[in-house]
């Protein structure tokens, strides 16, 4: 049976891991290869590397890093952050990543998704969606005209720029354009440790027939169970929870197994 996946996410800046990984016993907690190896040993199913520098000059550093990771860690990983050119996608895939994740550039130029899917296959194109719930303002009018109440709006540029685009409609559109997976981050829940946004995740998994990775809000073992059992997620991503060793990937998977979720142990 296809297992539900647990995915640690690492932020990368200038080829180094940032937002402190606090593992004991690592010689260099800023070395992406060493951190990846530690997660490999914990039984992580995949890794996501998010390049937060994402400037043109750093592209070569990133490609070199991808190659180094692929030569040292025999597990699948996705690379994202500021990717907007077919050539970037090709270089990162050829360097050894399984998947490339696109976000802002896909919103600005949706054809990037269809072009990339045609060239490299849907299976390696992940579209990351950062979504935030729209609440009615006092006058009863909505913030963005295109959006209905109780919907979510897509944000770009690392969550700084609202787009007026409905997140569910966007999810359907990216699937239609050929995305192979959606990495769905709830901006409302991210960093709260209150659990994944079950409502948002369920709404998206109900709309598309491609896999969905839920992201943002994991704080307890039960949160992982809920996002799989109640919201239909295919994978759950977390960062600080794992980096600060509140739980190991193994602990999460053992817990899920006990509760009857198919995981790989």
């Amino acid at each position, binding site marked *: *049976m*296809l*297992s*539900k*996946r647990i995915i640690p996410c690492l932020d990368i800046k200038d080829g180094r891991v940032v937002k402190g990984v606090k593992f004991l016993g690592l010689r260099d907690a800023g070395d992406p290869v060493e951190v990846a190896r530690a997660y*490999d040993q914990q039984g992580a*199913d*995949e890794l996501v590397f998010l390049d937060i520098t994402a400037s043109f000059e750093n592209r070569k550093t990133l490609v070199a890093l991808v*190659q180094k990771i*692929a*030569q*040292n860690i*025999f*597990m*699948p990983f996705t690379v994202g952050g500021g990717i907007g050119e077919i050539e970037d996608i090709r270089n990162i*895939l*050829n*360097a*050894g*990543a*399984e*998947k490339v994740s696109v976000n802002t550039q896909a919103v600005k130029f949706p054809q990037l998704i269809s072009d990339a899917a*045609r*060239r*490299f*296959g*849907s*299976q*390696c194109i992940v579209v990351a969606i950062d979504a935030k719930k729209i609440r009615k303002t006092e006058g009863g009018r909505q913030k963005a005209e295109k959006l209905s109440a109780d919907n979510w709006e897509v944000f770009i540029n690392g969550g700084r720029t609202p787009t007026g685009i409905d997140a569910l409609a966007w999810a359907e559109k990216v699937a239609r354009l050929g995305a*192979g*997976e959606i990495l769905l981050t709830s901006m409302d829940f991210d960093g709260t440790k209150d659990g994944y946004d079950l409502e948002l995740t369920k709404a998206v998994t109900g709309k598309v*027939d*491609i*896999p969905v990775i839920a992201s943002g809000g994991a704080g307890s073992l039960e949160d992982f169970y809920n996002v799989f059992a109640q919201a239909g997620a*295919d*994978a759950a991503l977390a960062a600080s929870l794992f980096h600060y060793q509140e739980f190991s990937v193994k602990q999460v998977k053992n817990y899920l197994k006990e509760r009857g979720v198919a995981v*790989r142990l």
Partner: protein
Amino acid sequence: MKIAIIDYGMGNIHSVAKAVALFGARPVITNKKNEISSCDKMVLPGVGAFDDAVLELEKQDLISVIKEQVDQKKAFLGICLGLQLLFESSQEAKIKRGLGILSGRVVKFRPESGLKVPHMGWNDLKVVAGNCPLLDGITGNSQVYFCHSYYPDPADKSAIAATTHYGLEFASVLWKDNVYGAQFHPEKSQATGLKMIKNFVERC
């Protein structure tokens, strides 16, 4: 032992090269005919679209050398798209036919009854051919990493060495004489995958 990692610009060569080196073989990353034919074994990786991959192989004039080396009974391992290319045709292809080294075709998963496509993640291997050298020591409950929307449908069912269930039972490991293929990524499947690479180096 030298193993050619055929580098035609489609997909990950580094993990495979490093993995074969772990087990004492010398990987030769190349798209040159004479280098390929001077190796003892070959690996054809592949990420991308079927048509593009065939076009690249044609452009770099690699198809004849692959067929020639396979005819000479050199061990050959196709990975993911590198396996699919061995078949006669693919539903993904609009203009190109495959290499026809294995009979049959490549078909698409159908997103019916809640089946999500691509088939993405870790799934079980059911070993059908217990004597397949590539699968030596691989137990029934091993999981490997898949990332694909199309799967092989061989005409010759005796070439199926292992299957995986996803909506239906499909061929995930192929084996015919000196030709081996994995629909998943052994080079990304941690210990289980590395065991298969070791088998390819030592037993195939």
